[in-house]
């Protein structure tokens, strides 16, 4: 189906999201073909013909309304069906927040992403936070991203994870994901945020737990030296 065109999924819930997208695609495709065929059929069948003259016809209210109400009910039924099928997915992705192994603060600003890691004790705001422009996360662990904006509305989007969440100034929004495959991926902003919106990208590096720990300690010691150098 349509989800074959997407980049390969690398998150635990991405498969569910792809299923919902495929379901919506099928429902819409059926309605599209049906509605357009009817339109073409009516246009040809009721075209102007010799011997048939248009007449004033007030119409029958219920027969007219049935052409509106019956399709509306069918569309509503499809909609509720999609809701029923997708409800569990929504609950997984947006409704629940499994306990985090790693928490990263993600700040969007015109026109870059900033990834803040806590100090060695897992605390933010102690002055020993690690600020990075590339996001590193361990594979197969639940990651919380705490999204904040410094200026306008942004949207944190990682296509490979099927994760997309608006970043609203004045609010802290927590989203989560669990990557299942190591590699380098792209994060983007998917909410028009100004002239250089197109360039608001960053890299997401999914590593094994060992590689991640090594990267984190290397960054911490480099950062420690930098701040020590700045202080002296």
């Amino acid at each position, binding site marked *: 189906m349509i989800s074959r065109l997407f980049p390969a999924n690398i998150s635990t819930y991405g498969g569910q999201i792809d299923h919902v997208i495929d379901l919506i695609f099928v429902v819409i495709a059926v309605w599209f073909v049906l509605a357009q065929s009817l339109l073409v059929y009516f246009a040809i069948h009721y075209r102007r013909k010799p011997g048939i003259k248009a007449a004033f016809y*007030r*119409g*029958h*209210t219920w027969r*007219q*309304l049935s052409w*509106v109400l019956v399709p509306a009910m069918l569309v509503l039924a499809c909609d509720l069906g999609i809701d029923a099928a997708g409800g569990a997915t929504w609950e997984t992705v947006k409704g629940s927040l499994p306990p985090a192994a790693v928490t990263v603060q993600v700040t969007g600003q*015109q026109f870059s992403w900033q990834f803040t890691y806590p100090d060695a004790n897992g605390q933010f705001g102690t002055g020993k936070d690690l600020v990075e422009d590339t996001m590193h996360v361990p594979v197969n662990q639940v990651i919380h991203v705490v999204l904040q904006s410094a*200026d*306008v*509305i942004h949207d944190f989007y990682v296509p490979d994870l099927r994760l997309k969440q608006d970043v609203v*100034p004045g609010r802290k929004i927590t989203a989560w994901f669990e990557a299942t495959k190591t590699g380098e991926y792209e994060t983007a902003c998917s*909410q*028009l*945020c*100004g*002239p*250089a*919106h*197109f*360039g608001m990208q960053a890299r997401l590096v999914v590593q094994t737990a060992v590689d991640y720990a090594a990267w984190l300690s290397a960054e911490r010691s480099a950062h420690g030296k930098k701040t020590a150098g700045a202080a002296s």
Partner: protein
Amino acid sequence: MEAQVQVNVWPVEEQHPAKGGFLSNYVFSVDHKVIAKQYLAVGLLMSLVGGAMVYLIRVQLAWPGRPVAGWGFIAPASYLALVTMHGTIMVFFVAMPILLGAFGNFLIPLMIGARDMAFPRLNMLSVWTLFAASLILIGSFFTPDGAASAGWTGYPPLSAVPSYTGNYWGINLWLLALALEFSSLVCTTGASRTAPRKPSYTIPTAPSARRSASWVKALWVIEMPLNSWRMTGTFLTGTPMS
């Protein structure tokens, strides 16, 4: 149950205003059919402008970084201005004027058997307000920092703070054009909401299309003056009104 149809036609001399000169017949006309065609003309002209923009957007996407015939190199800020203006034009200056202004003005009086709209001069004023709004919107491209580029949805704070987008006059003229466009459609829908009916016309026998149009108009009259007022206020004071 078939509705009973009573044939009750207005006398011919009451159906249309007396013929005047070219100006009063075709330019500053108060006839709902002429006004409907003027709405249609403005809408179709603006669809050509919006269509030209989509050509620029699509060619730019197909061959990024290369100059586009008819414009030249499209810088990121100009690209966003084109996207914003395309959305604004297609929604507010093509779809709405044609659906409400043209079809509403042309069909509703005929469907309910009315002679014309209730306020023909207000109706005429509204089509010319739309024309002025279109000129202002197109004119915003020629301001020093270009047309509005905050998206047709205009989400604040991006659209509210000039330094975020780099447009000051562009976004102000965009607001003014939208405020005028909304006022125009409020006037014309308000006029048709109260169009004098043929005596035999009663609500239960109204065609369903006419009834859905009534609902649309009732909602417009409730919602749009508020929108328009806020936009005008934002334009005049330079700060978003709440």
